[in-house]
């Protein structure tokens, strides 16, 4: 059963695209407080575009995105981030030439209280001890897995209410994929709501509470993660796993 918690993030009839190409044709989805919701689907189904539309990097041409009752469509990406909807984009975007610590400090840039910033940095270091060890090294010299931790740590510095994670397992060794998923679960247990885009559908459904399957820019199927995962036909047809 889906949780009874209040809906924090809701998309209704969202359409968006790049130039004249429409990538989303009316997406409806809901994320409830404390959930892990996963977005699944083949390449080009519109998963990344959905996240980008929520975080304001891509402008919705129709429909509405609401977060805690506030309309997000039309707001600047920086304002949406300040509201607490934080996007960890695909490819991690670790800033080259800046140290691990400076990368983390970027996340805390809008946090005015220095005490809170220190606490969050300490929290990020306790979650990812390797980042503490390497805090003075150039962030781009970290391994793929460490960079993913850095990207998540940076988002945590910002104090997200909802974390949008785009393919956190991409390019990671299998062992690190499991480690990353464990971290996502831990984060969720500290109260962060998560919307997760994943290629690895089986793992994502094991982790998530609820799932949406996208196909060519529309929601094809939705349901409890367990139900979706149990249906072998779904997994084979849409998830290619």
């Amino acid at each position, binding site marked *: 059963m889906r949780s009874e918690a209040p809906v924090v993030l809701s998309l209704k009839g969202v359409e968006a695209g790049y130039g004249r190409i429409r990538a989303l044709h009316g997406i409806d989805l809901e994320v409830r407080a404390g959930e892990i919701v996963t977005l699944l689907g083949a390449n080009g189904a519109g998963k990344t575009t959905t996240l980008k539309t929520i975080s304001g990097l891509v402008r919705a041409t129709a429909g509405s995105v609401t977060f805690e009752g506030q309309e997000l469509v039309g707001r600047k990406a920086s304002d949406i981030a300040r509201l607490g909807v934080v996007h960890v984009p695909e490819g991690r975007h670790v800033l080259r030439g800046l140290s691990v610590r400076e990368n983390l400090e970027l996340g805390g*840039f809008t946090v005015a209280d220095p005490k809170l910033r220190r606490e969050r940095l300490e929290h990020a270091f306790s979650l990812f001890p390797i980042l503490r060890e390497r805090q003075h090294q150039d962030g781009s010299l970290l391994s793929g897995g460490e960079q993913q931790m850095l990207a998540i740590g940076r988002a945590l510095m910002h104090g997200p209410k909802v974390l949008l994670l785009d393919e956190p397992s991409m390019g990671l060794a299998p062992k690190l994929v499991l480690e990353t998923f464990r971290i996502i679960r831990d984060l969720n247990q500290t109260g962060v709501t998560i919307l997760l885009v994943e290629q690895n559908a089986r793992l994502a459904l094991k982790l998530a509470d609820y799932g949406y399957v996208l196909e060519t820019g529309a929601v094809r199927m939705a349901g409890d993660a367990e139900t979706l995962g149990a249906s072998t036909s779904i997994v084979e047809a849409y998830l290619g796993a």
Partner: protein
Amino acid sequence: MALEPGSPGPQSVVSRPSAWGGLGLLLDTPAKRAAAIVVILAAMVAAPLLGPYAVVILTNALLYTILALGLNIVVGYAGLLDLGYAAFFAVGAYSVGILTTVFGWNFWATIPVAVLAAVCAGIIIGGPTLRLRSDYLAIVTLGFGEIVRIAARNLQITGAASGISGIEQPWLFGWHIAGSTDFYYVFLLLAVIGIFVSVRLARSRLGRAWLYVRHDEDAAEAMGIDRVRVKLAAYIIGAIYGAIGGAFFAVNFTAISPQSFSFQQSTLFLMAVILGGMGKIPGVILGAFIVVLGPELLRDLGSFRYLVFAVGLLLIMLFRPSGIWPSGAKR
């Protein structure tokens, strides 16, 4: 590269340079501050001893320093390419020229107007353009630079091609700033203020935001930094430097004409910034001095001097692509 991935932590703390490639460290120790004061005092004492010709050249180098520092905020701090920086220089110079000669204003009263005009121009040009990818700014600023020059060349109020002459040199508490040595000291003071402001900006919250936006706009935006506002701030502050430089340029030479604000000028300012090392204040100062003094020191070569100078610049860029001033790490 500063470090190998596996190098030990404590050592890397020491060996790792600051995010500003040494810029933030410019005045951070008493020894460096003392050195800075010695350099300024030396500049005050030495220049008049070198003779009037040297004073004029050095004054010009200081003007270039001010303008290069301003352009460095745009190019070096915020990572924007501005190919029409001379336009702000022109806005400042013409504001002073018109207001003092046509309307009979006092020079000091015209400075706020010159600054305001540059800020407005910065908002008009930067406001819409900075929303686009950075490449567009280069194109628009290139056009803006030419528009300002061509407008100045054709308008009556700017004196058309012959420009404005007879700009009165200012008084300051009974001191008539008129001789070349007087202006040398004025420009020295302006350059020192310009350096001070640049250092403070680099260490400010805004400086931090520029650093992040320069490295990765998307990541900065995703963390709540409004990239358009942050870039516009850099563009406007750069414009203010340009306008102030232009205002004092106008009263120094007492005459201005469109050819002082050509595309070639914009290129020279940009060259000063890139040559010394973008984002590094000592480098930018060095770049400004090279751009001004280089052709002067080669004067004996006659018409070959620009060729030799150009080859020299190419060699510098070939062997030190990130600028002459050392930074220690790839940024």
